[in-house]
């Protein structure tokens, strides 16, 4: 369950949560305690939503809700940055779905492999570097 106040609405939030995941995923991989881990994971899921669905939503003819509109705005702000090209962005949109699954498993205390954690870490690193 994702709470309403974990919406990602700005480009700064996208960057900030991507950065925060560096410590979180490191802590999870090496089984070290991370403060506010659950909350941060909740935000990270939202970040994945923005990247995975943002591209589709942007092309949609009709935007259903204000939340979706905010998601499109956050996604578009990433796209407008000069450091990312369309191809890289579609790649990341595809990765975001898999990363979202990994995060969901962690939130449900299911086992996650080191490779999955590495993949998630690499996704957030890429996202941080383009924001």
């Amino acid at each position, binding site marked *: 369950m994702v709470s309403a106040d974990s919406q990602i609405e700005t480009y700064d939030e996208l960057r900030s949560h991507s950065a925060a995941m560096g*410590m979180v995923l490191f802590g999870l991989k090496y089984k*070290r305690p991370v403060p506010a881990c659950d909350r941060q994971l909740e935000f990270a899921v939202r970040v994945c939503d923005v990247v995975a669905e943002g591209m589709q939503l942007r092309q949609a003819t009709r935007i259903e809700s204000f939340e979706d509109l905010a998601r499109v705005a956050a996604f578009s702000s990433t796209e407008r940055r000069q450091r990312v090209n369309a191809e890289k962005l579609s790649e990341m949109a595809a990765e975001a779905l898999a990363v979202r699954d990994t995060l969901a498993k962690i939130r449900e205390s299911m086992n996650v492999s080191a490779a999955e954690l590495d993949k998630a870490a690499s996704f957030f690193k890429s996202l941080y570097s383009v924001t």
Partner: protein
Amino acid sequence: MDDDLLCFLRAFLTELVGRYFHLQQFVELTRRGARDGTPNLLIRYGELLQKKTRLLLGFSETISDLPKDAITARELEGPFRTLLNESREFQSLHKALKWFPTPWPGSELFQFLTQLGRERGVAFKFDTLNPTAVLSDEYNFLTSDVNQELPVSDSRSNLVVWALPKGESTNPLLWPVLTHEVAHSFYGRRELEPTIAGLLSVNDNRYKEVLISWAIELNADLLAFRLLGPAYLYSLMYFSIFFITSNLRTPVRPERADLDMGLHPAPETRIRLLSTEADSLKERLKNKDRKKEEYSPQLKRVWKALDQFTKLYEARLRLDHTAQPFNQDDYDGFPNQVVDKVWDAIRTFQHNDLPDVDITVKELETSVDLADRLARRQLAASVVPNPQGISCVKEFVESVENSGRDEVLDRLDERRPSRDEVLDGLDERPASMAEILNGGWQYKTRILHGSPLFKVKPTELKNGQTLESYSKDNFLEQSRQLQKSIQTAIILASISRFADTPAGIKYA
């Protein structure tokens, strides 16, 4: 080598926590000035700072007791990125201080600079400036230029304003920044443009303005280094590695992009050039006594501390390379290729104009003893340890801190220090500003390598202390101790028998 990365990361976390404590202290000062209770804005802001501090303190457990395979650049890049972002957020929070009333800096800032000017023989230049110092909500002083924003500040007004980040108003270790600003007031474009004019080829001419602004910055760095020695290099490295959030090889642009004149060379360039200056200082000191090629034991410790600190800087460069690679193409054409020539030209110009302002061997050697004294939580105000002797001076400093001027005079009247007490005080050679700051940075280097956050396990804390209260006491105590040392040294300098001895160097 990889242990250096972890050491850097821990130092980074420690310093961020420390900055939040300093910020909280500043907010507390502001709160005391509020007339009708504490405004909600201050309460909420204070809570936010506390929340941030606790989050960061929690990270100390995340990077404790790590297995060996976790300590590589690839693995530590994630936590590094998180802390870089925290540094950025700290600086944004610092900017929010613009909504709070801002006190003027305490007189100790001026006393520090005036005393430094006297010790280095540049008081004659300093006295003509009549500067104003302000506390700025901008944390990143590397891009700050308060003079550019003041419409009354132009070449005709003789208005000189130096800014210090509000959060650092009580932290003397970052006061060397002001020395860099002083240098800007000594030398501007008028003096430096002709110095580098001959170096510009037709191709370089495209970047003439950039090059001139770089020359102005490098010249200020050089003078600050000559006045304070390694203490300035420490402060520049410290600020760059913990508070510059882009890759250190990136030239720094001011936030207002139209101000191309304010463009600074990359921190990496500045640190590299100052490090070569430190190397040549090292070489000069070695050749001073030709009979033996060795340094004195104290000087060896001076260089060892600087090397240790440089390792932190190098670790940051390595993590930069992994987390946020630098793309040279983005900065194609910046005049990096002529920057060394600019540096040489500036050195020649400055050494001709001000030949005898450099920190001395004696000061560097003494700084080691002062660092030891700071580590023992003693004042580093004089170079002849005589704690009884300085007690009357210390009492005077405390009175100044706690009371208005009239009350101080009354108290002194009541106190009437005995003749012996006064004479003991006079027998001490006041430490110079350069000695104290170099001692302070050496002490700080030790702390960064054995951060209190990682030294004490929560179970070892006594009397209901938390990691938060324990580290807060530690951090603020360091700055207090250093600040008090500077104040006491300045007072001592005005009454000492050795007051006329420049930095007491002739007194062994």
